[in-house]
């Protein structure tokens, strides 16, 4: 589904990703963990080309993302992204946040888009907030709206960049529950997270990144309980 080949990314002289090879299969949930600055966000952002790729290739369903012939806007409609800071549009109500792209890009009618939005709001448990503005919502609620907004484009893959790190502890669960449900429904997901409980429970595979490389990867039980690499052990020792 997503194939990453020899991905390099540098910011000026700073090499952040130094050759990543990875493949995400359909319906798979992959959690990416690793120390701060190891390039997790950059990796995720390269997948939908929010960062320009320095070298290597990324394919989504066989289409090379970083090819000048590829319509990147089209690719992005197939790849949903959820950010640490939610990034809801503050000048739009919750429902407008969700319906904007489907109406504007998928050319749904207003009523079609609103029905879809209400359905998605039901799914994330926020139907009654449809006509509120984002700043009237708690962080956890905002993040659930952000998930609904991404889902409204009916993406084939969802990327999450530390979706719960900006939340107060009591709100983490409500967001993780939505993500778990999504995983059970068979959504292909790549999740950068520090929530090891979530990774253990939901992930099909866990990837440990450090220093711009994928150092180790495998099923959660294996990676968490019997890490092979020294750096993985050191990292897990610190956080578990």
């Amino acid at each position, binding site marked *: 589904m997503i194939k990453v080949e020899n991905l390099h990314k540098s910011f000026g002289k700073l090499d952040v990703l130094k050759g990543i090879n990875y493949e995400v299969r359909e319906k798979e949930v992959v959690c990416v963990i690793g120390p701060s600055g190891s390039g997790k966000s950059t990796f995720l952002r390269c997948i939908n080309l929010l960062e320009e790729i320095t070298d290597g290739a990324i394919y989504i369903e066989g289409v090379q993302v970083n090819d000048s012939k590829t319509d990147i806007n089209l690719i992005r409609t197939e790849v949903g992204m959820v*950010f640490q800071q939610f990034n809801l549009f503050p000048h739009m109500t919750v429902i407008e946040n969700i319906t904007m792209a489907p109406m504007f890009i998928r050319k749904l009618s207003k009523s079609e888009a609103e029905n879809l939005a209400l359905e998605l709001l039901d799914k994330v448990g926020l139907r009654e907030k449809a006509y509120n503005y984002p700043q009237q919502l708690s962080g956890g609620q905002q993040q659930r709206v952000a998930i609904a907004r991404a889902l409204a484009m009916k993406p084939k893959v969802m990327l999450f960049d530390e979706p719960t790190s900006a939340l107060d502890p009591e709100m983490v669960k409500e967001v993780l529950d939505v993500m778990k449900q999504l995983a059970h429904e068979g959504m292909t997901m790549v999740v950068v997270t520090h929530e090891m409980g979530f990774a253990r429970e939901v992930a099909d595979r866990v990837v440990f990144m450090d220093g711009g490389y994928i150092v180790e990867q495998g099923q959660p039980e294996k990676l968490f309980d019997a890490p092979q690499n020294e750096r993985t052990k050191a990292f897990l020792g610190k956080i578990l």
Partner: protein
Amino acid sequence: MDFLDMRWDLIWDYREFFINGIWVTIVLTICGYIGGIIFGVFLGLGKTSKRKWLYWPCKLYVDLFRGTPMLVQILIIHLALIPTVFGQSFGFMVSGITALILNSAAYNAEIIRAGIESIDKGQMEAARSLGLTHGQAMRRVILPQAIRRMIPPLGNEFIALLKDSSLVTVIAANDILYAAKIVSGAHFRFWEPYLVAAVLYLLLTFIITKLVAFIERRFSIDYNPRKKREGRVDV
């Protein structure tokens, strides 16, 4: 200074000049402002561009016009630029409006650039990640938020431009200040004509201030759903 000996009757005799002056000042300012906003939008967008061939000319223009006195710009435009380019002068009105447009565009460009750049980077990224093009994201997501932040400084710019428009008297434009100069020149009275000119400018800036405050309220930054249901148009 003999305050008790004010000759307000002189002003009354020259009322035609002052009334005409008010119109000239208003037309100069409004034309200059509208033109300056339109041109300023292009310059401001140019200054936010990553493309160097777009960025540098815009930056150069803005620095040039912000770095030189408006009085000098007016004289160059009226006496040198327009006669050279067109082979003739089109009068103080055309020169004056041109100068005001070119000058205020530079200031407006900075306001527009700053407004756009004040919007969190995440907004553009979120819009792009949904599949919007840069232009679509600008129009739907960035500008509606940025415009709210631009209104107060753009209002200040309107007031500044109104006051600066008095500089066109140097090319003999018959605006408010020019009427005062006529009176003072003919009768060697200074208090009355210039005080009247000052009060007229004050009146006009007062009206603009109220107007800007009104617009600001309509575009108010608190996104309150109730206001929306009352039929207010959000940008």
